[in-house]
């Protein structure tokens, strides 16, 4: 019921690896680590969801804020390796229309 947020950064890219559950308890920590990355000009952020077992609207709220910030700061964000159920939450809320979201494909990369 916790979330580990592991950030690795080089010059132009940031890799954010998430492990655990994103809910009302863990979302503030995620926001605190993700938002500063989006404020770096031209930063390319990749968020790896392969270790995420649960996410609800509190998580969506964080990614909506991050998306808005990328637009203001010319950075970009890509969400990858989403489990089918978590991808579904982005789909039914219509967020896949405005976000760069990629689900995990069985047996390999997307």
């Amino acid at each position: 019921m916790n979330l580990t947020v592991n950030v690795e950064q080089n010059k132009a890219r940031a890799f954010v690896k998430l492990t655990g559950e994103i809910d009302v308890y863990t979302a503030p920590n995620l926001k605190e680590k993700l938002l500063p990355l989006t404020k770096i000009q031209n930063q390319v952020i990749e968020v790896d969801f392969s270790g995420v077992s649960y996410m609800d609207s509190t998580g969506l709220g964080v990614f909506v804020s991050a998306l808005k910030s990328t637009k203001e700061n010319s950075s970009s964000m890509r969400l990858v390796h989403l489990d089918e159920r978590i991808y579904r939450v982005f789909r039914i809320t219509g967020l896949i229309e405005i976000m760069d979201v990629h689900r995990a494909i069985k047996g390999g990369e997307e």
Partner: protein
Amino acid sequence: MGGFDFIEMKIPAKAEYVGVVRLTLSGIAGRMGFSYEDIEDLKIAVSEAITNSVTHAYEGPGKGEITIGFGVYESRLEVMVADRGESFNLNEIRDDIGPFNNTESVEDLREGGFGLFLINTLMDKVQINNKYGVIVLMTKYLDETEVDFNDNQVSGR
């Protein structure tokens, strides 16, 4: 027939306990025979209702209690989330609840009103009563197609 088992939990209105309710819910729904997909839907919907209580019910997080009731029926699960922290009578509350009207604008939804939207989308029936605090009553039916009718059932082969 018509009877049900009732399980009640009371948690402090704090964010760290929402995951604890999800674990209990998984146990109950799994016991009832809900599919993995349906259990995931239930976990999100119930978490949304509790999150709403944690963040709005008591003028800032960490005050008061939230009561969660699980009505276990043969063909459905009813989950009630009440943010007054008082015990409730399932039948009494059900008579006192109206249909859920989503009057939110699209703008509100985009700004983070996804919670109620998800509850409404992922559950089969949602009712909200806000006369005393907020009570959300959510129902999910066990998948009818998994029921084995032995009469008049046309076999696929």
